[in-house]
């Protein structure tokens, strides 16, 4: 066995994507679709697919696979598939339509995404994403998604953080909601057609792997507590990201990593767990009772100007009384060509530095101003209201302040995770038959995601990519029937039952939430916007201690055969604890700064992120080797044939 590195992990053999065809990048997807085996329409209903999660990726995949005639079983933990957290995305969805004739193209969207991801994503996957983006808009418009339109009746576009073209389609500040409802309605249409069997209020608690293939899942019915076995020819996880590790994040209360983490424990490698995104424009924390953070779409940065008082003594003053010359519009000053539209990681860190320097505003001094006074003077209140009305209302609802009259206060918050289960070009994980779509995989955003690209990836995977790649796998099916008595099934069910029994019988002293909150504080402190060797080492120790205490000391009341949200959370937090440790190990081992991962030891003289392409131009795919054993690192080398690797500059 190879040595343990830094006392934390081992290095295994390199890993490679074997599915993307070589050759010209603009022909790869077409070639792969042609080479992927077909399934005769008459045989499709004999093939079954489990889809876990019904957000943009999962909902779109269910609808499309159902339309194709496969036998789909869908699962979500919410009471309806329409509630998945894709619904909360506000700003928009990118597509290379070039409707504005401003120089956009598939290649430019590809280029911007690779660059925005700080050269840590696989070229062929990103190109495909850009390539299918235009079809997504066509599909959504045909479904009745009410995108914003101009008076001509044609679709409107806007520009979004980190890019210089207008390629973002939007539906006021509720784009995610409208896209999800489109996918949900398409899914419900298949439910009525009988191709999709929907199981809401069901949580996946274990993956079933038989003879090396993913063949099913174990779920808990969240109303009756019944533990159920569901078997199929393939399993798709579209269960979203793991930002809820931090307790305070912009994710929904129920967002969790249990499905992906259970799959990881069964052999699926986890890619780049340390790549998390901190969103610059969220409503600041108001007190200890805070249960989650609310994002304000960064489209606000198109018209709002970010500033802090030059003099820390002014931070308590009414911002409207601070004259122009005493304000520091620090993004416009430091990054003159991108100004307030610099990528998310840069905007977030800049806000942190201003607050660290004592210029932060609002409770606790953790906030900066986002000011619309100039925009209202220039365009009039009505136009600003049309563009951002619902965001302004939401801000006022939460803070009690009216942003039409006084500047908003914003602060960064954890928002999205670029890391996720490692997948090949076919979106298949290292477990054959286990596919991963949307935020749950690691595939397209590298070390940092550009604004309005999450919706694009979710729908690209769900509508266009997965349905085309999964058929290559299903063509070899149906696979031999798995009896309920199969050892893999029995073992998975027992593992689920044991965990539930443990939580209900521990009778400790602390609630699940109190542990979760503490875990979040450790991560925000040491694995948040800025990370250091010493801090991460400390975080690993603290997480281990917290995890040990959790298993002995958690208090979950009530029983299994009832709605029991403490019990649901208990399983999720147990998995968060293990994933949090891996995240810190990944952050420790990556001794470079790139995208959302900022290592204080690796920065340029003027404080910008400094990549180390010699040592780290790879995706880290982690293999599970036991709850207390060092994980094994498999490196996937990233080769850039079409985009030259450059140090990012937004100045």
């Amino acid at each position, binding site marked *: 066995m190879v040595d343990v590195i830094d006392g934390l992990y081992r290095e295994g053999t390199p890993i490679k994507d074997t599915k993307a065809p070589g050759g010209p990048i603009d022909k790869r997807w077409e070639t792969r679709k042609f080479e992927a085996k077909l399934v005769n329409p008459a045989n499709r209903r004999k093939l079954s697919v489990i889809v876990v999660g019904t957000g943009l990726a999962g909902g779109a995949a269910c609808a499309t696979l159902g339309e194709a005639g496969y036998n789909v079983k869908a699962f979500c933990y919410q009471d*309806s598939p329409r509630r998945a957290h894709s619904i909360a995305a506000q700003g928009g969805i990118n597509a290379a339509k070039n409707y504005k004739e401003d120089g956009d193209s598939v290649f430019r969207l590809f280029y911007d995404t690779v660059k925005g991801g700080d050269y840590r994503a696989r070229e062929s996957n990103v190109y495909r994403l850009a390539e299918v983006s235009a079809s997504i808009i066509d599909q959504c418009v*045909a479904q*009745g998604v*009410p995108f914003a339109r101009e008076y001509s009746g044609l679709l409107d576009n806007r520009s979004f953080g980190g890019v210089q073209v207008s390629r973002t389609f939007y539906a006021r500040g509720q784009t995610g909601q409208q896209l999800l409802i489109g996918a949900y309605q*398409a899914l419900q249409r298949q439910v009525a057609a009988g191709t999709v069997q929907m199981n809401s209020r069901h949580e996946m608690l274990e993956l079933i792997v038989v003879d090396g293939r993913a063949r099913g899942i174990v779920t808990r019915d969240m109303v009756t507590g019944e533990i159920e076995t569901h078997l199929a020819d393939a399993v798709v996880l579209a269960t979203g990201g793991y930002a809820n590790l931090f307790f305070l994040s912009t994710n929904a209360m129920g967002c969790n990593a249990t499905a992906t983490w259970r799959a990881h424990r069964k052999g699926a490698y986890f890619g780049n767990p340390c790549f998390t995104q901190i969103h610059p424009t969220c409503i600041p924390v108001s007190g200890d*009772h805070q249960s989650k953070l609310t994002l304000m779409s960064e489209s606000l940065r198109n018209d709002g100007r970010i500033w802090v008082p030059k003099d820390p003594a002014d931070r308590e003053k009414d911002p409207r009384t601070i004259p122009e010359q005493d304000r520091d519009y620090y993004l416009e000053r430091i990054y003159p060509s991108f100004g307030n539209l610099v990528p998310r990681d840069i905007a977030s860190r800049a806000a942190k530095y201003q607050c660290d320097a004592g210029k932060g505003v609002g409770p606790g001094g953790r906030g900066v101003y986002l000011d619309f006074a100039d925009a209202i003077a220039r365009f009039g209140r009505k136009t600003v209201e049309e563009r951002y009305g619902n965001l302004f209302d939401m801000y006022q609802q939460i803070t009690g302040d009216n942003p039409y009259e006084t500047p908003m206060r914003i602060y960064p918050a954890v928002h999205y995770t670029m890391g996720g289960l490692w997948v090949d070009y076919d979106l298949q994980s290292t477990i054959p038959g286990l596919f991963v779509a949307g935020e749950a995989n690691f595939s397209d955003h590298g070390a940092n995601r550009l604004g309005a690209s999450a919706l694009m990836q979710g729908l690209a995977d769900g509508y266009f990519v997965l349905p085309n790649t999964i058929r290559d796998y299903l063509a070899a099916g149906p696979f031999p029937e798995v009896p309920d008595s199969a050892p893999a099934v029995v073992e998975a069910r027992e593992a689920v039952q044991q965990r539930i029994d443990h939580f209900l019988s521990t009778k400790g002293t602390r609630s699940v*939430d109190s542990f979760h909150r503490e875990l979040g504080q450790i991560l925000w402190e040491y694995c948040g916007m800025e990370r250091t060797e010493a801090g991460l080492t400390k975080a690993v120790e603290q997480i281990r201690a917290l995890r040990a205490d959790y298993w002995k000391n958690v208090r979950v*009341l009530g029983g299994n055969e009832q709605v029991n949200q403490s019990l649901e959370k208990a399983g999720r937090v147990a998995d968060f604890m293990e994933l949090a440790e891996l995240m810190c190990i990944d952050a420790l081992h990556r001794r470079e700064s790139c995208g959302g991962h900022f290592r204080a030891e690796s920065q340029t003289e003027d404080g910008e992120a400094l990549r180390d392409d010699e040592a780290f131009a790879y995706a880290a795919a982690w293999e599970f080797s036991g709850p207390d054993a060092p994980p094994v690192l498999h490196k996937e080398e990233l080769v850039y044939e079409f985009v030259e690797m450059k140090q990012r500059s937004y100045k």
Partner: protein
Amino acid sequence: MKINLKIWRQAGPNATGKLVTYRLDDVSPDMSFLEMLDVLNEQLIAKGEEPVEFDSDCREGICGMCGLVINGEPHGPRVTTTCQLHMRSFKDCDTITIEPLRADPFPVLRDLVVDRSPLDRIIAAGGFISVSTGAAPEAHATPVPKKNADRAFDTAACIGCGACVAACPNAAAMLFIGAKVTHLGELPQGQPERAARIVKMLNQHDAEGFGGCTNVGACADACPKSIPFDVISQLNKDLRTSLVRGL
């Protein structure tokens, strides 16, 4: 702030429920309503009592998962979702009664959690445009006048929370259906299935046990997304057209 709470507790779908009184002594006006309940639950767990079960997910007012009847009003005194209601809307020493969304088609599962799956089945019956993936024409092929696109958006903003049903004395889901038929009916893409859509959705509505609309208007008052009451006029108009065509 000090707050007195009377909360509906019910052990399961077939159990008898009752209002139970609790008291919180240290409520911040900046807390959201659900954060106030989180605080209560932490205190209950510390005392060894089972926490109050209630649904919530995004806590940003968009997913539609939350929905409590607060002092008799779905989502409480303001035009917003329960999760976006803040304690600054209440006064020190207020007594607040919290019940689940009440309607026969929404059975209580436990405490404040109800089953709203009938709404999903109404959508499945016809609340969509039938376009399979890949079959779509180029997005700019059909311009949509801004006026129609805006009206489609306003009505598509429905979050499916069910407050309209709970507010209605007849437990009708007409605002919910009206919003959907108006959203899809405003768009050229929604025309081919328009006449059949309304009939299918209404048949499912009746089969689920929702009541009829008697133009009370409580639904639109309770709607956290301000879906306008006139979508029900649109619904009736579309229905007349369908009936004339013998659908």
